[in-house]
């Protein structure tokens, strides 16, 4: 009870700070300097119709690299934590894990759906510079396809090698493209190593579609790796 009271007291204090923030908040009427630059230049300089994508992939590309790395870290650590025990503690005496068989419907449906889902994911990140969505969303969609596979066949062992190869190659190429930008264009992750092309076309916006695709592949692989690691844990 004391704990609740203290928590409420502290949160009231924090709420006070938040309330003053809210009270002092006045929505902008005009775009501020930074936003205005993006509005004026993103399309012209970078050739990206989706300005959010331009910011994510190029202007704040370093953030995005960091963000991808966060997922990479999370996936690595989850793998590190969860698979560690199995290596050291094999239980050879135990019979193979068994589970109630999954329904026929799900299995068939999965076979049918997964390729479509993967395709959708690819579509989403390929079009990131034009429409809402991009690498992260596409990656998540790809991962949901993998998830479906896992649900349909919980005992299925994913090839961790494949997943991590995709992840690593995508990551390496991502960095490589960034460095190419550093050498050939204005700076690290500059997308203008390829022609900007025509605004609104699929093949446009310089390296943005390329980079966003790599991000999508990498994110998808990272999510999948996380899910796979979790699904491979033994039940306690």
């Amino acid at each position, binding site marked *: 009870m004391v704990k609740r009271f203290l928590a409420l007291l502290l949160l009231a204090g924090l709420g006070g700070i938040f309330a003053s923030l809210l009270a002092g908040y006045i929505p902008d009427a005009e775009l501020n300097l930074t936003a205005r630059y993006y509005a004026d230049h993103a399309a012209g300089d970078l050739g990206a119709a*989706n300005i*959010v*994508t331009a910011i994510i992939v190029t202007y704040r590309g370093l953030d995005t690299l960091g963000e991808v790395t966060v997922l990479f870290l999370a996936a690595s650590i989850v793998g590190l934590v969860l698979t560690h025990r199995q290596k050291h503690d094999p239980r050879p005496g135990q019979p193979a894990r068994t589970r109630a068989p999954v329904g026929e419907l799900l299995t068939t449906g999965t076979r049918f759906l997964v390729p479509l889902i993967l395709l959708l994911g690819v579509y*989403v990140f390929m079009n990131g510079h034009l429409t*809402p*969505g*991009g690498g*992260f*969303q596409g990656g*998540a*969609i790809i*991962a*949901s396809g993998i*998830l479906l596979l896992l649900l349909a066949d919980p005992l299925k062992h994913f090839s961790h090698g494949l997943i991590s190869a995709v992840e690593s190659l995508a990551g390496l190429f991502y960095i490589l493209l960034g460095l190419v930008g550093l050498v050939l264009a204005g700076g690290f992750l500059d997308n203008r190593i390829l022609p900007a092309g025509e605004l609104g076309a699929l093949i446009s916006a310089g390296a943005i579609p390329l980079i966003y695709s790599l991000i999508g592949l990498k994110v998808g692989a990272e*999510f999948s790796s*996380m*899910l796979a690691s*979790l*699904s491979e*844990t033994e*039940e*306690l």
Partner: protein
Amino acid sequence: MNILMTAMTGLLCLAMLGSAWVAVTGKGSGQRVSIAILASGLVSLFASVLFLILAAPDVAMTEAAIGSGLTTFLFFFVLSRVRAGRQDGS
């Protein structure tokens, strides 16, 4: 139009807060925890609708896919492991 929009947003916010309250309060484990997880997934889902209202389709997509989708699945994976353990351990 504007008032309607505001009212809708208000309702959405209320729903979100309600789900959030369900997600963070309550006791017990097992089944009850799964309710909390679902409620927090619901908060994310409502949030992605709110993002659409706030003219942020990219964010909406991401929140829907990651916040309410993947996160919830991660929770359930762990919950199922832990719950199974509880039955074994008893």
